[in-house]
């Protein structure tokens, strides 16, 4: 048995030099074939035909590497091996093809025997010589192509070189085709996903059209959801008035739950957990240890996926879907369910608002706004009591990059179902454009284009303000919307508020490609910016100017904080016929004095110190989360001062804090020296401090130790 020959390494693939022009043409034909086929199997077939031709072989075959199993898998063959069973697997290193792949170089077998090939077909077919080359892409083996002849010693070194050249082209083509295939697969998946998202939207578009919270509506919704996610059951549970129990309100496939009025305590069982933990839960196996609701077990639900229903940060219930056979719900399923839940929650909340407004004239639903240091903000939205009027009003407070805030007050002009849908789209689009960072005029311009090209082209009036939280500078655009009002610091200043009169243009959605004017102003410390919809100033029996003047007088009358202001305004100027929305943003006066406290260096005084600092932070309107971080960091520094500073004598340390230029600066200074951390436990204090604050500096000198800390107090802290 002659040993396999490995040809001289091809130091350079100097292509044209080694090859006759005829063969060059053949190679070029291979490239062309490669480029014209993107389906891998067609490509392989065509390439093999050509290779067989070029090398005058009786058979040609290609195997591709399966990365995961490190095996070569037979993919295509022409000639004698054509009936080779596709899918034959050769381990890397094993047999002829395996060796070609493992050595990453061409191999010639002058004489084929059962000792040097694994694949029995090769011998069966009477092949006597073989030539194989690796298919390499950037040095990586992606497969092997080999050719065979019925005579022994059928291949020369020149043949090997030629086959390698052809193989190189083949490798690139294969890689390309595979990329294309995976791209296609991804696109198909995305399209499939898009179809499912559309189905979910179809579900909730129904929802937004209904405003009575009755069982029929919810059942229809659930049925659509069931189909969209291909599940057997779906259910909605809502929290009762006390917020301690979930009540099954509607279900498909689990109708008994609603009929029996099943109640699940928050924190217990499957649905109860979702409320308590405020996050999706996937239950692969449903049994009596994982769920409380007996109906789930009676019906035979096998797997469950549930998500919380949240409105403005508050959990109002749970939406879940289930299957009778085990199912591994994917992240994609969860995302889709959350998407549906978002919109269902809005629909339910709207329905409630409307139900409430029908029975109570002035039902006010305060909203949760982001908590921004240095600003006191509040909003109110009161839907009209009139049934035919479905709210097209919306407001938004956006936390934008570089310490800015976007303030939105909008009013979609249509009424009814369309208003709600349009409002949703506008809101989302505006948020997206705002986050792109453009100036107000540009943002509204883009929004105008968006509306003009959308299917539901509803006009809307919008006031959009971008406020720099550090300087108070603001830029604004009024698209057909009433002017924002700036109120002075407090009662007794004598002056009425002033309206921001610049930046006026027509409403959004009316004219194509129109410019939107922009104007600038400043919100000084102590001043309040008020955005509102026309329901607050328009009265049938009153000129708009009068309405504006009245609003100004009323608002300036007694500023006691943004929340009180909003409450007072909707109560006194609330409008039965129209929705009313109001948003107040008060820039806190910088008259918060720096904080200084001398503290006895004993453990018992730490608690009082924290309380004092906490009050000072509250006066600065620092968000809860940030305040807690600061208290923790100061607590650590203070504890160190107590522990390490000195002996039993009645000594003190000093804590100072001040806010300047958007930064919080804190120092803790004592008269002792810190001993090095004892064991692993005490050093933790400093680590914690560094994690909580932006900068920490500990300076030890003979007279004492000073810890300086800094934390940026900018926009971006979402309040607890």
């Amino acid at each position, binding site marked *: 048995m002659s040993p396999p020959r490995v040809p001289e390494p091809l130091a350079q693939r100097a292509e044209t030099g080694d090859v006759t022009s005829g063969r060059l043409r053949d190679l070029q034909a291979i490239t062309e074939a490669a480029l014209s086929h993107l389906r891998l199997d067609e490509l392989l077939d065509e390439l093999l035909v050509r290779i067989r031709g070029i090398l005058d072989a009786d058979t040609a075959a290609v195997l591709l590497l399966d990365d995961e199993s490190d095996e070569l898998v037979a993919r295509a063959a022409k000639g004698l091996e054509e009936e080779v069973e596709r899918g034959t697997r050769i381990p890397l290193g094993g047999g002829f093809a395996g060796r070609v792949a493992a050595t990453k170089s061409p191999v010639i077998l002058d004489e084929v025997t059962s000792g040097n090939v694994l694949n029995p077909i090769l011998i069966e077919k009477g092949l006597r010589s073989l030539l194989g080359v690796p298919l390499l892409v950037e040095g990586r083996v992606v497969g092997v192509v080999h050719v065979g002849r019925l005579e022994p010693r059928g291949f020369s070194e020149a043949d090997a070189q030629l086959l390698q050249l052809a193989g190189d082209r083949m490798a690139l083509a294969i890689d390309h085709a595979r990329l294309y295939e995976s791209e296609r697969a991804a696109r198909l998946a995305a399209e499939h996903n898009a179809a499912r998202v559309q189905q979910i939207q179809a579900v909730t578009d129904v929802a937004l059209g209904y405003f009575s919270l009755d069982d029929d509506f919810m059942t229809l919704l659930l049925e659509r959801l069931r189909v969209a996610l291909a599940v057997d059951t779906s259910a909605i549970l809502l929290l009762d008035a006390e917020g301690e129990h979930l009540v099954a309100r509607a279900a498909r496939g689990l109708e008994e739950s609603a009929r029996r009025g099943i109640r699940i305590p928050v924190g217990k069982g499957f649905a109860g957990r979702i409320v308590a933990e*405020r996050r999706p839960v996937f239950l692969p196996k449903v049994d009596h240890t994982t769920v409380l609701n007996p109906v789930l077990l009676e019906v035979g639900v096998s797997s469950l996926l549930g998500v919380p229903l949240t409105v403005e940060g508050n959990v109002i219930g749970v939406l879940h879907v289930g299957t009778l056979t085990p199912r591994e719900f994917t992240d994609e399923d969860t995302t889709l369910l959350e998407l549906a839940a978002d919109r269902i929650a809005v629909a339910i909340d709207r329905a409630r608002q409307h139900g409430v407004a029908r029975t109570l004239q002035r039902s006010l639903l305060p909203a949760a706004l982001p908590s921004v240091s240095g600003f006191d903000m509040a909003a109110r939205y009161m839907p009209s009591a009139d049934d035919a009027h479905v709210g097209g009003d919306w407001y938004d407070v956006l936390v934008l990059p570089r310490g800015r805030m976007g303030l939105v007050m909008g009013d979609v002009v249509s009424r009814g179902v369309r208003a709600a849908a349009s409002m949703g789209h506008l809101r989302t689009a505006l948020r997206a454009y705002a986050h792109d960072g453009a100036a107000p005029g540009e943002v509204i311009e883009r929004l105008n284009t968006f509306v003009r090209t959308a299917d539901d082209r509803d006009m809307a009036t919008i006031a959009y303000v971008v406020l720099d939280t550090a300087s108070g500078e603001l830029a604004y655009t009024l698209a057909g919307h009433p002017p924002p009002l700036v109120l002075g610091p407090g009662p007794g200043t004598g002056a009425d508020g002033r309206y921001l009169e610049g930046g006026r243009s027509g409403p959004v959605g009316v004219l194509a490609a129109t410019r939107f004017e922009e104007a600038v102003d400043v919100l000084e410390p102590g001043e309040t910016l008020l955005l509102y919809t026309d329901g607050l100033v328009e009265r049938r029996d009153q000129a708009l100017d009068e309405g504006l003047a009245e609003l100004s007088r009323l608002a300036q009358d007694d500023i006691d904080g943004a929340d009180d202001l909003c409450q007072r305004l909707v109560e006194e100027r609330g409008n039965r016929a129209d929705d009313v929305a109001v948003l107040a943003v008060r820039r806190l006066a910088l008259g918060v004095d720096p904080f200084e406290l001398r503290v006895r260096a004993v453990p018992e005084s730490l608690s009082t110190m924290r309380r004092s600092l906490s009050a000072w932070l509250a006066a600065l309107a620092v968000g809860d989360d940030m305040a807690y971080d600061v208290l923790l960091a100061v607590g650590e520094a203070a504890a160190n001062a107590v522990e390490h500073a000195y002996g039993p004598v009645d000594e003190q340390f000093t804590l100072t804090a001040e806010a300047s230029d958007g930064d919080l600066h804190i120092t803790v200074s004592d008269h002792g020296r810190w001993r090095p951390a004892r064991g692993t436990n005490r050093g933790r204090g400093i680590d*914690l401090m560094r994690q909580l604050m932006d900068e920490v500096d500990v300076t030890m000198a003979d007279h004492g130790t000073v810890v300086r800390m800094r934390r940026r107090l900018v926009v971006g802290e979402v309040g*607890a």
Partner: protein
Amino acid sequence: MSARKSLDIHTEGDIVIAELSGEIDLSNARAIGSVVGGGVANDAVALVLDLSEVTYLDSSGVHLVFDLAQRLGGRQQGLVLVVPADSKIRRVLDLVNLEAVVPIARSLDDAKATARA
């Protein structure tokens, strides 16, 4: 005035449950640690330390937990904390990655289940 605190220890079968409330800092951490540690009988299988009502916890408190964990571990006894998902002290526990060393449950029931598992 030292940090407000209150401490309740009781036994349920083979596990000891210690409920703490208020603030835990340098002024009371060591004392609490002693009392709680001392309240775990040798035949108890685990201690559940319920921190649901704790409003402030800094490195002194973390030290107390680690200390307890070591002591109990030495006696083959388990330690599980109860810290609800929306508790303020979650922040400090996350920063020191306490959960890598001591299991944290979101409710007393979950903690008892874990302790017995």
